[in-house]
């Protein structure tokens, strides 16, 4: 185990736990408005302070973690669920028309400025968590398709794949039996990276009002609310910002750590 992996996993676990706990318990009711308590700096009662409606920021962050994690996770799921099979398919039929079509399609999605299209989708079909998920998820598809194809292509040239072909196995079966298990590590690592990018994207969309809608709390919207108050109550901007940074940092560290841990070449030189 390396340091990155430990710190990263702990940070990620912390926020996952916060999200899960928020289903049964938060320090305060995150929907309860209390004008007299508004804009409190962090103190004994409200550890992270209160917002302009007097809501407890810690409670909002805990519930907001739920939104962020759910959106990012489903978006990664969409990317993996569609991207990996496409990548495997393209690699199995490398050089054919279908490979060309899949890869050109990928290039095309890459060519769209992702945020612009995400904004377009949410704007046209309405703001909301579901559309945010779809918008982020679409851009995860080519990422996974490309990385799967790239890794699979080099595997297809390996002799153990030739041996499987000599044993008469079909391309589909070889893809599932031999290729997929050997690209899993790579996909897990990429998965954590896309997860963290998803959290950033969700925060960005919510910040401009195109993500999760009130009353569902989200980190991006908390920041949007904080913007006008930033000189008055900087903690309103600082706290959700720290939540985003720590979560993303945790996931990235975990990804880096996993890459080192799962890469047998690196492991051999370490031990």
């Amino acid at each position: 185990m390396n340091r990155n992996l430990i710190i990263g996993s702990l940070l990620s676990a912390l926020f996952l736990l916060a999200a899960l706990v928020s289903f049964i318990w938060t320090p305060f009711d995150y929907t309860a408005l209390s004008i007299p308590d508004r804009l409190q700096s962090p103190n004994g009662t409200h550890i992270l302070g209160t917002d302009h409606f007097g809501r407890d920021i810690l409670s909002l962050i805990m519930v907001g973690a739920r939104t962020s994690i759910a959106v990012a996770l489903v978006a990664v799921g969409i990317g993996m669920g569609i991207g990996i099979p496409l990548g495997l398919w393209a690699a199995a039929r490398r050089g054919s028309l279908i490979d060309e079509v899949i890869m050109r399609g990928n290039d095309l999605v890459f060519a769209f400025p992702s945020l612009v299209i995400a904004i377009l989708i949410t704007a046209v079909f309405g703001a909301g968590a579901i559309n945010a998920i779809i918008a982020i998820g679409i851009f995860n598809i080519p990422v996974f398709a490309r990385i799967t194809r790239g890794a699979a292509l080099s595997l297809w040239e390996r002799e153990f794949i030739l041996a499987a072909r000599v044993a008469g196995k079909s391309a589909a079966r070889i893809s599932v039996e031999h290729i997929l298990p050997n690209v899993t590590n790579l996909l897990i690592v990429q998965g954590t990276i896309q997860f963290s990018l998803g959290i950033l994207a969700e925060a960005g969309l919510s910040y401009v009002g195109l993500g999760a809608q009130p009353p569902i709390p989200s980190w991006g919207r908390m920041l949007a609310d904080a913007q006008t108050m930033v000189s008055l109550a900087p903690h309103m901007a600082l706290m959700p910002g720290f939540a985003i940074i720590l979560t993303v940092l945790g996931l990235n560290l975990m990804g880096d750590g996993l890459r080192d841990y799962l890469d047998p070449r690196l492991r051999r030189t370490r031990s």
Partner: protein
Amino acid sequence: MIRYTLKRLLSLVISLAVASVVIFTVIEVAPGDPASFMLGLNAQPETLAALRTELGLDASKLERYVTWITGMLSGDFGTSYTYRTPVADMVTQRMWVSVPLAVYALALSTVIAFPAGIYAAARRGRAGDVGVMSATQLGVAIPNFWFAMMLVLLFAIKLRWFSAGGFVGWDKGLFAGLHSLTLPAIALALPQAAILARVMRSALLDVLGEDFMRTARAKGLTARQALWRHGLRNAMIPVLTIIGLQFSFLLAGGIIIEQVFYLPGLGRLIFQSISARDLIVVESVTMLLVFAVIFVNFTVDMAYAAVDPRLRART
């Protein structure tokens, strides 16, 4: 080389064609009729019909697509439903904010990232490397709009070195213009610089492991000479890819940053048009951004060929 260029050009044209169809379709299926939106709920059906004809909304989909595309090709981006001014004029005006901002940010990002990445690669595993890499980990994790808010808090509200938002306009002089774009550019550039520095470092480390680097050392080059003369140019191939992707990200990322700083750029134009259901503006600006990205990617492909003689020879 000619074949390589032609092939890239062909792929550019195809990408643009497909992109235009996609954008047109998305806008088409968008709920809400711009004409009724403009006239409000109590509009008379006759007035509505008249407006629809005037806006060209009653033509068939194919006709409207063709009109739109041929218009764009001749520089006519249509007329804004809400402002009743040519979209081209609005876009040109806004571009003078968005494009300089993206270029400014890209320059900043490159200026920060190259030395940082090269430094970290040269000191691989040592304190300097660990320091730079930790900083980039943090840089990657910071949302740029949050960073923008913090910059405003520190440099505009507390220190009063910069204004908190708005754009003075280029007619106030180059310096004043750049000054008012500085905070947004920093906010945009920092996370990108972190990514670019990491790519630079890992590309260099990959190259350092190549056989020809050992050959260079065997000739008597110092580690530093080998890095500069043989390492950098080979490492530029992945780095160029990322710079290309970043430019599109900076153009798009500008949309959110423009919101933070109230900058009259393309991003704000898109937002205003979306809320006003001014779809012709949304459509044209999106297409323009996509064109910019595809064109930058084309330029990057051309740059590859300049860097790598193998590409010039092949295809």
